[in-house]
């Protein structure tokens, strides 16, 4: 049974001539325990897809079943509750609250759950220990490096013990060291049985994933299962313009623990017949 099940989900922005079709009848199901990388060129709808899956945004058309429950038309408050209890978010720009300490930031989701102050600080503290930040509890975000902030943000995403982690370019602002730190953490979370969905532009990071979903123009154009530790075949072929930031980006995620794949086997996505667009605009 699929944990996340999207059926013909479309998302339209704007109206009239300015309408953008950010998601174009996407059907996708993700099982519990998958580690999904979402890839694709800029503007193809990756963030939109993650926002819909994370209940931050509602689809314009189509149905979304989370845990077999229809959630595409939830009220704000029900969505908030479901988000709080089942989904943890990690953002590219970290999004810690600048005026709270790391510990208070991590404890915040528990506060919204109604956990008492002593207990939530204790839980937050042990969560920070798990991400290796135990001696930075009373630091403010501006006193930390990007990698450290993202680790704290991961602790915050985990503190409510959500079953799904949604990370939109979690390594986008990080150097190779930071990226590795974050990805190792995510794969640890994955190993504990959580479902992780993340967006990346870096094909190297598909080594961590068990499945890679490729998007283009609001559509899923390829869906590939990969084995852990190997760069996804399609990603390697660079069918898409992958924005290359620096040498470090290429090195990012190249864990010493992981071996390079021996041979390359290309699947040319462009040779596949693309589904006819049936935009309803």
């Amino acid at each position, binding site marked *: 049974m699929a944990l996340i099940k999207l059926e013909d989900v479309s998302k339209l922005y704007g109206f009239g001539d300015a309408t953008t079709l950010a998601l174009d009848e996407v059907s996708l199901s993700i099982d519990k325990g998958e580690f999904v990388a979402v890839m694709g060129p800029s503007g193809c709808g990756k963030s939109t897809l993650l*926002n819909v899956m*994370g209940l*931050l*945004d509602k689809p314009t058309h189509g149905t979304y079943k989370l845990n077999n429950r229809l959630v595409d038309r939830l009220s*704000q*408050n029900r*969505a*908030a*509750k479901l*988000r*709080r*209890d089942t989904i943890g*978010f990690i953002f590219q720009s970290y*999004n810690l*609250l600048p*005026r*709270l300490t790391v510990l208070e930031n991590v404890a*915040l*989701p528990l*506060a*919204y*759950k*109604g*956990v*008492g*102050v002593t207990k939530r600080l204790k839980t937050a503290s042990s969560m920070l220990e798990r991400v290796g930040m135990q001696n930075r509890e009373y630091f403010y975000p501006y006193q930390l490096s990007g990698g450290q902030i993202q680790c704290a943000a991961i602790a*915050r*995403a985990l503190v*409510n013990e959500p079953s799904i982690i949604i990370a939109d370019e979690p390594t986008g602002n990080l150097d190779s060291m930071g990226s590795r730190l974050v990805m190792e953490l995510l794969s640890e979370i994955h190993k504990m049985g959580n479902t992780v969905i993340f967006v990346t532009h870096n094909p190297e990071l598909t080594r961590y994933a068990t499945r890679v979903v490729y998007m283009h123009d609001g559509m899923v154009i390829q869906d590939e299962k990969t084995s852990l530790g190997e760069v996804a075949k399609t990603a390697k072929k660079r069918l898409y313009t992958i924005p290359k930031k620096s040498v470090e980006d290429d090195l990012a995620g190249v864990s010493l623990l992981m071996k390079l794949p021996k041979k390359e086997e290309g699947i040319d996505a462009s040779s596949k017949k693309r589904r006819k667009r049936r935009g309803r605009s």
Partner: protein
Amino acid sequence: MSWRTGHIHTAIVTMRVNRWRSILTMFGIIVGVASVIIIIGISQGVKANITNQVNVYSKNVITVTSKAASLSSFGVSSVPAVSTLTNQDVKSIGKIKGVKYTVPMVILSGITSGDKNYKDGVVIATNAYLPKVLNQSLAFGSFFSATDTNQFSAVLGYNAAQGLFNEQIPLGFSLNWRGEQFIVDGVLNNFKVTPFSNNTIYNHAIFISTKAADQMKLDSNNSIFQILVRVNNAKQLTTVDKEISNVLQQNHGGQDNFSVLMPSQVAKNNTGILNLLAELTIGIAIISLFVGGVGIMNVMLVSVTERMHEIGIRKAIGASNRQIMSQFIIEATSVSVAGGIIGIILALIVDGLLNLSTSLTPTINWQIIVISAVVSMLIGIVFGSVPAIRAAGKEPIEALRNE
């Protein structure tokens, strides 16, 4: 609920970060709360004083005034020249059963001079029973008696003695008034002065006997501004009060041109103007509180816009609309309650200073202080709710897009 603790913490952090903005926002509340407490304190203090003095100086005393003369509570200068009370009234009242002393108070014009001219002085012709009616003793000398042969003697109010003579104890000294010489027989003790009471006039008075005035052929009939009537005991106050009204009604041919005031009414009359002032000031203070509330609303709306991204983050990690709303209402309430507390402290300081440096003795009314605190809290809740609802209603993804 325990998450509220977090909101108060956030509210305090926000106030600390935007310290100046918060203080300026509180300003209307501070001014409103402080002025309400100060004004009510002053007016209650003054009222308490007046009531005390009525108890001291006018115990068991019924005051009869001419209707036209009732404005005299404004002070010496505005005593009207024409009164409706007559010598016949004085006589008639004297005959009523239960009346112990009847004392006419006749105001006469003309400058008095002793060692110096005394411009603030007012000459009051009265009879020997005045000190007994007013419960007032003499500092020096004695009051003229009913059987006095020397009718041209004067008794001075405390300030009048200082205003007329260089001597500390001017007993036996003479003063001139309208071409006649008066010998000072005595000086009254100082009447405790409160704003809006009649006692001021007594301290500035030169008391002469009505007999002397008669001898000078002065028409006292049109100048009796008050008749003070002392009854034997408090139980008789009501019956005597009624009887005086009846008698005067007859004397005046049914005209209602006089008033008969019980001791309690005297105090009330004197504080009427004070009440009016207090009500006006409280009206202005309420406007100030309202303006303060609108100020809080305005600042909170700006704050909500500025912090849209923060709202988005909070929603993404599971805050419900209600929780976002309470956060902003608590923030607005913290600002208004802080303003209220500062206003209360300011009022207490001002009350203390007034107590030390003026004759006012503002009372500290705990009920008013508690009400002020509650009202400032309500202001925060009421005026904070509009921005809070706006903050809560945002779609999380839209809020997150605001950087």
